[in-house]
């Protein structure tokens, strides 16, 4: 934000680096350009997902009588339909909906922390950062559960003919998912799921570490001593970016 707390001492002249054409501090600029490069990384992943998905036949028929096969790409709402504590239930997209809600809410508490930082309100910064941190940890826990469920699979599994890791063609009931075969659809379905949601989860993990750092430093008064809360703002940019990526992952993995 252009109203960042930092004020550069411009004793240096215009040609000595004293002017600021972008009116943002070095750290914030670098965070923005890092995020731009990360947009390209995630963009390439998601567009690749689209391309690989298009190279497989779509499931023809109504969602009600959908059954998994490695012949066609599955319908997401029939795959992601489990919630914790209810065994074998069919609750399409309920759990990812909850995860989306948690991440959006943690993004909101992050903006509130940044806003409190602009006002030098240490108590508010600490309070909102703690909420954000909790949201991030909850999201990661949800993702861990979702992965565990995806890997272990359903009770019935799916009867599939596929090429196993020894290059033999086998026909057997497949349970859960790994990088060779999965009970939900073509191998690429699980590979892309692990790869892209895993990369996003890795970003969230780093975000949680950074949030903890900001929370700790704000709480012990490091930023107050420093005279500004710009670190909260930079970590905030990163955290919103994680939310932004999830919005796209949600659309491409769970809706389309």
């Amino acid at each position, binding site marked *: 934000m252009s109203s960042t707390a930092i004020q550069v001492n411009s004793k240096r002249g215009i040609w000595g680096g004293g002017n600021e054409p972008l009116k943002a501090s070095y750290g914030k600029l670098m965070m923005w350009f890092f995020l731009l490069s990360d947009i390209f990384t995630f963009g390439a992943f998601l567009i690749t997902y689209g391309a690989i998905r298009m190279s497989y036949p779509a499931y023809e028929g109504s969602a009600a009588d959908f059954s998994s096969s490695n012949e066609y790409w599955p319908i997401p709402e029939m795959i992601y339909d489990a919630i914790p504590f209810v065994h074998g239930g069919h609750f399409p997209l309920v759990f990812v909906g909850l995860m989306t809600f948690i991440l959006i809410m943690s993004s*909101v508490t992050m903006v509130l922390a940044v806003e409190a930082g602009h006002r*030098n309100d240490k108590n508010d910064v600490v309070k909102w950062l703690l909420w954000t941190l909790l949201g991030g940890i909850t999201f990661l826990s949800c993702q861990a559960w979702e992965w565990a469920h995806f890997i272990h699979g359903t009770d019935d599994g799916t009867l599939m003919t596929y090429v196993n890791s020894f290059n033999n063609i086998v026909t057997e009931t497949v349970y859960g998912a790994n990088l060779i075969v999965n009970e939900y659809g073509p191998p690429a379905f699980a590979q892309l799921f692990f790869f892209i949601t895993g990369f996003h989860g890795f970003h969230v993990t780093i975000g949680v570490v950074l949030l903890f750092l900001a929370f700790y430093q704000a709480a012990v008064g490091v930023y107050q001593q420093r005279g500004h809360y710009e670190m909260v703002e930079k970590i905030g940019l990163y955290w*919103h970016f994680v939310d932004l990526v999830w919005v796209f992952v949600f659309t491409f993995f769970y809706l389309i």
Partner: protein
Amino acid sequence: MAQENKNDMEVIPRDSAKIRKIWITALILLLVTAFEFVLAFTMPRGILLYVLFILLTIVKAYYIMMEFMHLGEEAKPLFYSIIVPLIFLVWLVIALMKEGSDIFLMRW
């Protein structure tokens, strides 16, 4: 909002209009997501539904970048140096969609 007293760190009182705006943005994001859920279970799957999903996703991305990341309030050169390079993604979408559908034709 500009920080005048940076040495004694005077706490500026909350501006309720600003905080309200943040919560309204959050409400918009949640409503758009809820609307996507409704579409997912009521509309038949097909190109029209996918286009709607992608448009709604871009609406959400707009709100996150403009309201949460405050990109709109940055200096114009910074704003454009973030937005304009994204045009390369448009090319990538076109190229890889073509690639995907061609692989489909070759394989099946």
